[in-house]
């Protein structure tokens, strides 16, 4: 197996250039699939036979929830790569994931509770998914807090990478324990979200919305990571050449 692409991706100038090329593609594709998903979800999809029009929150809630998990997975993967291969670019990507992941976790919580009000009759229910989403928000905030508390970038990168990896081992345990805890205390079965069998007219907009969120996430992370790379490498020669300063 040829690993040169991996090492080349780890070289800051190369990453900076490739990311710059990828960003417009991600952004435009995200915008197109987002608009298509929005029209499909808000206008074309039929109302649900149980929840009426209220279920349309699914087109923002589920993608936000998916993204909150995906951002954590991306962050932990990048952190692990950065820790093992001492790759600065990977740390820059990990650092870029936290803020956006936290904001989408928050979004998933708020849209979930807005959905819960008409469906459960209450804004907050100690539902296992909402509870583990809340714990995940705390994990994100801890990660960002740790990063903010350490002044030295290299130390902040490595310490927060350890935390991200510890968190990624813990997330399944937390999710499982919250599930278990909830099944004991929930006497009656609640209305379940995310029915497995959805007609295509509902499912296709949902998939489009998820695709849009994922591409949007990629674009934002790349923009942020480019900034982080510049900040980490600010004294490097390639930056001076890149920015066209007289040398």
């Amino acid at each position, binding site marked *: 197996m040829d690993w040169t692409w991996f090492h080349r991706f780890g070289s800051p100038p190369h990453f900076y250039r490739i990311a710059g090329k990828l960003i417009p593609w991600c952004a435009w594709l995200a915008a197109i699939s987002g608009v298509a998903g929005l029209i499909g979800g*808000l*206008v074309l999809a039929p*109302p649900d036979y149980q929840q*009426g*029009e*209220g279920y*349309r*929150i699914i087109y*923002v*809630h589920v993608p*936000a929830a998916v993204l909150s998990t995906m951002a954590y997975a991306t962050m932990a993967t990048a952190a692990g790569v950065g820790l093992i291969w001492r790759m600065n670019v990977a740390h820059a990507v990990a650092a*870029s994931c936290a*803020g*956006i992941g936290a*904001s*989408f976790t*928050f*979004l998933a919580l*708020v*849209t979930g509770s*807005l*959905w819960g*009000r*008409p469906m459960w009759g209450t804004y907050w229910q100690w539902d296992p998914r909402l509870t583990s989403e809340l714990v995940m928000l705390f994990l994100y905030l801890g990660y960002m807090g740790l990063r903010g508390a350490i002044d030295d970038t290299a130390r902040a990168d490595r310490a927060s990478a350890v935390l991200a990896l510890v968190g990624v081992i813990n997330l399944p345990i937390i999710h499982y324990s919250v599930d278990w805890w909830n099944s004991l205390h929930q006497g009656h079965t609640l209305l379940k979200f995310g029915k497995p069998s959805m007609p295509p007219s509902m499912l296709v907009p949902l998939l489009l919305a998820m695709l849009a969120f994922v591409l*949007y996430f990629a674009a*934002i992370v790349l*923009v*942020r990571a*480019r*900034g*982080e790379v*510049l*900040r980490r*490498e*600010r*004294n490097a020669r390639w*930056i*001076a050449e890149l*920015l066209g*300063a*007289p*040398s």
Partner: protein
Amino acid sequence: MMHWLAMGGYWPYVWPSYLLTLLVLVLNVTFAQRSAQRARMDALRRAQSAAAPQGRS
């Protein structure tokens, strides 16, 4: 149109969700661009001061 906006009586839940999503999306773009821009300006300033004769020691 009004019928659509009413969302079958669910408008107080559906529309705030979508508005908040829009807000989160826009804010993330703004913050990301601002931080990238700041990093670029900082790097540019450093590159220029390094290139200037008195900057070299």
